[in-house]
């Protein structure tokens, strides 16, 4: 088979673009979980981000406002979750599941007037370089600003957690909220901030789908990406760079198997469709099998309700 080098570049570029929403949502959820909060509402926050972004774009005709609005709507939804779990001390798992169901329903309701409306073209950066450089051009150039942000985010997250004081505090809260409170750290504030940040990133991930990747609104268009993002965080053992790797592998195999289906390779379609899920888990389990590191990275208090002694 003769693969032309430019096609390869475009293919890799497409793979990377398809993994952007996963990277955004998973990076956000990673910070939330590192503070000890398990928010299973990722899917709901993404889909709300997707519809809010799209609706705002249609109404205001301003993409910048649409992006900001999508993040705010994700943040708002996560605030409900934060209020329930942190202030009213409800169970994390149940609250998160409810958030997803709520988000999907609400987005369908808001979105029924926006079905079939065409999206707006999102400005792409370095388009001239894309054509000029073979192979690397289509990989690295001609993408949206959100794309570049997403690929820098895991590195930023990693730096934040390892090198900054606030990152240290987030990890400390996730390790033991009781000890943190005894050290004078405001556990509720830290956890609220992490929850809201996670919500904003999920909203942005959703908006990437409806504004940039496939610029239109389709009901349920996140199609389980929120769950994949959640799984990525766990299988990447809460390490931002492994989340990035996992997201690219997932995106990559998703696109490759589509090409394989198109080429008519004689493998059952169901198996090919399942391949991205299987391979991502296998690869992440293999690269994360150091049990000592798992122990160090896992937020010990994940999903535990914290209340202050009085």
């Amino acid at each position, binding site marked *: 088979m003769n693969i032309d080098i430019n096609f390869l570049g475009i293919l890799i570029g497409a793979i990377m673009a398809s993994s952007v929403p996963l990277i955004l949502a998973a990076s956000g959820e990673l910070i939330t979980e590192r503070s000890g909060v398990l928010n299973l509402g990722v899917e709901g926050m993404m889909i709300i981000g997707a519809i809010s972004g799209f609706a705002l774009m249609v109404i205001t005709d301003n993409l910048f406002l649409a992006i900001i609005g999508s993040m705010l709507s994700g943040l708002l939804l996560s605030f409900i979750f934060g209020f329930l779990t942190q202030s009213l001390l409800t169970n994390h798992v149940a609250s998160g599941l409810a958030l997803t169901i709520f988000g999907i329903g609400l987005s369908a309701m808001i979105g029924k007037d926006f079905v079939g409306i065409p999206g707006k073209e999102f400005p792409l950066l370095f388009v001239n370089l894309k054509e000029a450089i073979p192979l690397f051009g289509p990989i690295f150039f001609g993408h949206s600003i959100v794309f570049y942000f997403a690929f820098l985010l895991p590195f930023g997250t990693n730096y934040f957690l390892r090198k900054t004081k606030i990152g*240290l505090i987030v990890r400390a809260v996730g390790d*033991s909220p009781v*000890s943190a409170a005894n*050290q*004078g750290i405001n556990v509720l504030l830290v956890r609220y901030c992490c929850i809201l940040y996670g919500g904003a990133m999920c909203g942005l991930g959703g908006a990437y789908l409806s504004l940039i990747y496939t610029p239109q609104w389709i009901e349920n268009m996140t199609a389980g990406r929120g769950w994949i993002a959640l799984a990525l965080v766990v299988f990447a053992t809460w390490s931002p760079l492994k989340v990035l790797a996992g997201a690219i592998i997932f995106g990559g195999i998703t696109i490759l198997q589509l090409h394989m289906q198109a080429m008519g390779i004689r493998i059952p379609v169901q198996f090919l469709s399942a391949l991205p899920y299987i391979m991502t888990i296998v690869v992440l389990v293999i690269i994360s099998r150091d049990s000592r590191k798992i*122990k*160090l990275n896992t937020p*010990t208090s994940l999903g535990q309700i914290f209340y202050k002694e009085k």
Partner: protein
Amino acid sequence: MNTKLKVSKVSKIYPGCIANDNVSLDFESGKIYALLGENGAGKSTLVKILSGVINPDEGQIFLNDKLLKLASPKDAKNNNIGMVFQHFNLFETLSVFENLSIDSEKNNDQLRILVNNILKKYNFKIDLDVPILNLSAGQKQKVEIVRCLIRNPKVLIMDEPTSVLTEQETEDLFLSLKKFSKEGILIIYITHKLKEVLSLCDEVAVMRKGKVVSISRTVDEELSSLANKMIGESLNKIKKMTSNNLSGEQILRVSRLNFNSEDPYEVNLVDINFTLNKGECLGIAGISGNGQNELFQILSGETLSNSGSIKFRSKEIGKLNPKERREYLMAFSPEDRISQAAVPSLKIYENVALNNFKTSNFFEKGLFNERKIKDHSKKILSNFSVNTDNVNLRSQFLSGGNLQKLILGRELITSPELLICFNPTWGLDVGAINYIHQTLLKINEQGKSIILISTDNDELLQLSDRISVINKGKLSKIMSAKEVNPEKLGLLMGGGLVD
């Protein structure tokens, strides 16, 4: 500079319990103060108030005649009150240095220099860059102490610091505390261990049921006087009557029992043989980690041995699980009260119901008969003097002594023929220990048998009829308790004497 800390008329009331009742105390630097009391006497509540974790309902605290407002742990820190809790407040997955830096305003380089100086000065050997979970309990405690020292504390409060330490670590700690005291740090030492009070402290305040009942100099006190103040009554000295049970009816026979574990951290048991008579107490001594855990688990049926036999009243029970063994009227009291014997988050009556699935009529057609269980639980609480009658209380709120009484009560109320207990008084205060010892003696007198696996030699010598020592998974010859003394036991435990 001299530091004076004054606690004035502090009270803290929880629903159903007065934790601190009008507590007034004066402390001055240069001395080491002991705050002595049984579990649940209100010591921990007081230190939590002093460290700002909880707020008192009434009363004030003065530092050098200045009224302190301790609304949060931060306030205590800012007023140079340092605190080392019994349960460490460390972040297990963070490195030592990260733990220290988290609440420090200094930048990392300055802090590292400061910490290294402290480590050198007090000869603490801690690697700053390993995660806390790799450290021993003694090292973790040193990290906590260093965390306090960074802030130049005027007051250092230690809450039952030796409960997790080895003997050597305890000695090291005492040396450090004496050094701190010489340097002008006021030290308040909370404990229920009488010997420590006498060997370390200058003054001692005794607390009982939330009140301060006595303040005195330790030179004027001795073990028995402190014990009496702490308990509030004289302890009956326990001594086992000479028993005639050695020739009684045989109730348990363990022969050629072996256990090879696949887990490298477990001890293999080699050729265990012993018999137990009706009404007899067989003590099994040994340094912890020599196979006691494995032996207890095999006797209780939690794990099954690879070979050999256990005959209870001439029935082979070696392949039965704990539940089935209970049906043959065996009872078990494991070492770890919190995770093995009881479920801390369950209510008292639920914990009582847990191991009475078949032997009782608590369950009718698979349903829970709540009233019956509650009545039954109430009976246990009153028969075994647990200091609450609220069967709806979550077990985690019971102190260690009361939890142990509950567990023993739960096991004994069905009048089993054989009780196997493992370190039944571990970590308990004198009053609770005394109660449990009396209980064990009593059931012996009633003709029930006991296997007492314990690391406490005094306890073994007090209660046992015969004693064997377990060392590296092997039992020594079984001796009559009369022919054993602490020295001989010590030698056998260390493997220094081969019989």
